[in-house]
């Protein structure tokens, strides 16, 4: 990460009313037309240059992570979705988390609180595979390398998407 971007990320971003309208207009998606920023400019009553400048600024500040395609893992053949959860010692969790997150089959990796006694796990790594066997192989690979640092672990497979709408700002 370059210095300018690091600084931008430390500064809380301010959004004006037009930024918010731009977010509301695009949270469902970018218009699928040759000049999408022109289409948005027309809806918002501002110039396309202004729309593009606002979008670039939001990218620079990390308000927009990226503008791209969000694949549906199941539709791509990644039928097995396993949330692997690990109980690792707190003093090592940052180091272990960095390492687990760097594995190419891990799509999300977070440290979260334990809620004892029901929930002893403090590290979450989302795994996607073409089958449960593939996910299990990945879990075993992580378990072997963590060794005694993984005091307990399990995998929670998803069996149904009950809702998926994503973030929604009210207009």
């Amino acid at each position, binding site marked *: 990460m370059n210095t300018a971007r690091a600084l931008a990320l430390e500064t809380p971003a301010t959004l004006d009313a037009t930024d918010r309208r731009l977010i509301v207009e695009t949270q469902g998606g970018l218009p699928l037309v040759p000049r999408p920023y022109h289409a948005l400019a027309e809806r918002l009553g501002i110039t396309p240059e202004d729309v593009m400048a606002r979008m670039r600024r939001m990218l620079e500040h*990390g308000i927009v992570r990226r503008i791209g395609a969000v*694949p*549906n893992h199941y539709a791509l053949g990644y039928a097995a979705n396993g949330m692997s959860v690990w109980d690792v010692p707190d003093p090592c969790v940052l180091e272990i*988390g960095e390492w687990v997150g760097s594995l190419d089959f891990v799509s999300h990796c*977070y440290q979260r609180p334990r809620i004892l006694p029901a929930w002893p796990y403090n590290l979450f790594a989302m795994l996607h595979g073409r089958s449960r066997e593939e996910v299990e192989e990945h879990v075993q690979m992580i378990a072997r390398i963590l060794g005694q640092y993984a005091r307990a672990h399990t995998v929670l497979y998803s069996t149904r998407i*009950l809702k998926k709408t994503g973030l929604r700002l009210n207009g």
Partner: protein
Amino acid sequence: MPRPAEAVALDATDRRIVNALQGGLPVCERPYAEAATNLGISEDELIRRLERLLADGALTRFGPMYHAERLGGALTLAAMQVPEADFEHVTAIVNGFSEVAHNYRREHAFNMWFVLATEHPGRINEVIGDIERATGLKVYNLPKIEEFYVGLRFEA
């Protein structure tokens, strides 16, 4: 029990589009034309294929990915242990909250896992309290403490 969506048939060009466009589209006057050039197809074909990939469900969305916390909002992951007999009823209650962005059933005693996204951080605890009152079940709030960098790429 309904299973997650079946795999969609993708041809080689679809796969290249899905792989290439996870990384991001530039902000410019004709972003699809620019991406299409890199893929060796026309702008019109790229737009038509993206429309189809969205309609078929191979892509869940295409566009800016907003970062809730940097918008001043908050996100958390929450889990519940729902008795099997009440599962459909509780699902309807939980999904009825507009703050519930994703909800998954998982095989575990904690069988319901949902993401709450709110515009204001204080709203998270209010919604959790509302869900507990509406369902009579405890909601385990598991907000992220640290997010570890991942590449976030799926080979189509």
